[in-house]
């Protein structure tokens, strides 16, 4: 928690009105024929950020990245790097490097030659290249594999060679296109932390494209959630998760229960929402200004809902239901509970005890309860 460490300055240049962004997208539009890939997008990315572009395939995140690399030209709008317009600059003249999804290692060159490839085409004197290659090999812990060809090393090692190659020229900005997609889960998690370490060590600005929300949440300082060429929300991972601004973002990130309701009554700091006939109304606290009769969505994460066999008295909301299904994931269990009106709520509970006699099973009548601040009220 940054607030508990007053000596450490919190890294949040996006909150500083004086900070000058490294990259600015201004009203950028990209069309492929009739198809609009990016729709009037404006975005600032700051130096030293680890910025994630997150969205389903076809949402325009890769197009956005390719425009930064110089492989696509915007149809309209401006992209600046350090205040300089980079749209007319060719890819080989940009201080930006990219790590490709397929790694794109040159199969006819050794690991060391792959890393040296960009350096040989830079103003760096020949005598310094070997030293820089050695330094990069050490960074990704591949000194022993310098003379191997890409097909003689493992997938994880190949990924690190690709990273070393794209960092060798010390770019101002590193683009990572689904960098961990080809790795298996365990290796992917390790590599995520390794990436964060390297980013912190070098202080290079990273922009990562991913469709994996966990990956984006883990590595990024800020996440931009995209859909159909538009930015849905740009915020830190915790804000994206806990305070989504729209149903789309709430639904895209993690598991969520979306409850459609109408405002029945204003209360202290919030509203009473009617959501189903015969069910008790939901008490929700929110800053969103609403009037009576407005329809809205109450979004609540499964882990914010407690499940019990008896009705709890101390919670603002409690609804009865019947257990329909239990998903056992090892660390947690997710209960699918059917409400009297047929709606299904998901509630998850940590399995904090081993082999405990589980009190709740299929077909049981249970109570779901949550506080007035556990969920968010969405109007979009």
């Amino acid at each position, binding site marked *: 928690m940054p607030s508990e460490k007053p000596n450490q300055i919190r890294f949040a240049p996006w909150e500083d009105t004086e900070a000058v962004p490294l990259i600015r997208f201004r009203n950028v539009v990209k069309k492929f024929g009739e198809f609009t890939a990016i729709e009037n997008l404006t975005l600032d990315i700051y130096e030293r950020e680890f910025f994630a572009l997150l969205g389903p395939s076809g949402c325009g995140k890769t197009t956005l990245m390719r425009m930064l*690399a*110089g*492989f696509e030209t915007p149809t309209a709008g401006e992209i600046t790097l350090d205040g300089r317009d980079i749209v007319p600059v*060719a*890819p*080989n003249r940009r201080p*930006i*490097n*990219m790590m*490709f*999804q*397929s790694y*794109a290692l*040159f*199969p*006819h060159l050794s690991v060391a030659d792959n890393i040296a*490839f*960009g350096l040989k*085409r*830079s103003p760096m004197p020949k005598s310094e290249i070997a030293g820089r290659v050695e330094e990069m090999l050490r960074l990704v812990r591949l000194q022993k594999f310098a003379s191997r060809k890409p*097909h003689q*090393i*493992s*997938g*994880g090692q*190949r990924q690190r060679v690709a990273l070393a*190659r*794209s960092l060798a*020229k010390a770019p101002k900005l590193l683009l990572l296109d689904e960098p961990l997609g*080809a*790795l*298996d889960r365990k*290796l992917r998690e390790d590599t995520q932390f390794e990436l964060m370490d390297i980013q912190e060590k070098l202080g290079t600005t990273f922009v990562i494209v991913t469709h994996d929300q966990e990956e984006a949440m883990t590595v990024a300082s800020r996440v931009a959630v995209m859909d159909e060429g538009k930015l849905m929300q740009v915020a830190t991972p915790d804000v994206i998760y806990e305070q989504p601004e729209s149903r789309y973002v709430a639904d895209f990130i993690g598991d969520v229960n979306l409850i459609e309701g109408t405002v029945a009554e204003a209360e202290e700091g919030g509203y009473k929402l009617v959501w189903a006939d015969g069910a008790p109304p939901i008490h929700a606290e929110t800053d969103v200004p609403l009037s009576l009769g407005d329809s809205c969505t109450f979004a609540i994460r499964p882990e914010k809902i407690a499940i019990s066999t008896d009705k709890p008295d101390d919670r603002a909301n409690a609804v009865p239901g019947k257990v329909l299904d239990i998903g056992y994931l090892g660390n947690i269990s997710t209960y699918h509970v059917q409400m009297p009106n047929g709606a299904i709520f998901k509630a998850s509970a940590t399995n904090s005890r081993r082999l405990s006699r589980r009190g709740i099973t299929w077909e049981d009548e249970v109570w779901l309860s949550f506080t007035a601040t556990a969920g968010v009220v969405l109007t979009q």
Partner: protein
Amino acid sequence: MNRRFTWFNATSLTLGFAFLYLPILILIIFSFNESKLVTVWAGFSTKWYASVFNNTAFLDAALVTLKVGVISSTIATVLGTMSGYVMVRGGRFRGRTLFSGMIYAPLVMPEVITGLSLLLLFISIGMDRGVFTIVLAHATFSMCYVSVVVSSRLVSFDRSLEEAALDLGCTPFDAFRSVTLPIIAPAVISGWLLAFTLSLDDLVIASFTSGPSSTTLPMKIFSQVRLGVSPEINALSTLLIGIVSIGVISASLVTKRSAVRRRAQEQQAVGGAA
């Protein structure tokens, strides 16, 4: 599928191969004939091979053929690689289908027409016919074969390799030279070998475009045969068959080996992730 041996399969296989290769086999056998009569066997001898190598007319023709083959296939390889690259990489533009059709059309164009139209062209621009015109003609028709071979390799080429080269500071030409070309080299080499082989055994187009001092080996053989088949021709033809077979076999070996290696690498890439 039933893959068992049956008399029907054996018979059709034998007949098919006999149909294809019996004439060539007879030619090879009679090239070792002692007798001057082509159709009567009189014992084994290699004297006709010796006489081929002493026949200056044959050797001159062979030299012309070799010169034409090397130069024309080199030109065809450069042009064919360029056109193959543009067809695969050029993206979609107006008339792309027409262009690719026009590149592949010479594959099915009757040789007589290609030869005749080239002859008319050379006459109309007043170009003296000789080795140079045969080279041009051969480069023209074998270029499309190279283009087919190279573009089929480029289709499976990972585009991001070129983008990575650009990203790391290459100009487009530098990216092609230092990344694309080394990787597609096997296809380019087999394209060259194919073009060389095609040039080596072409008779029709060479006849149309050759001049007085530029007789190629197939032309020489053809004109000799009209005066009567001599065992010398058999020996020469056997040598030609040998050269052409080596060309074709090595071209297919180069392609196959690199395909196998590529597949192994791709498999390793998938399996290596673990």
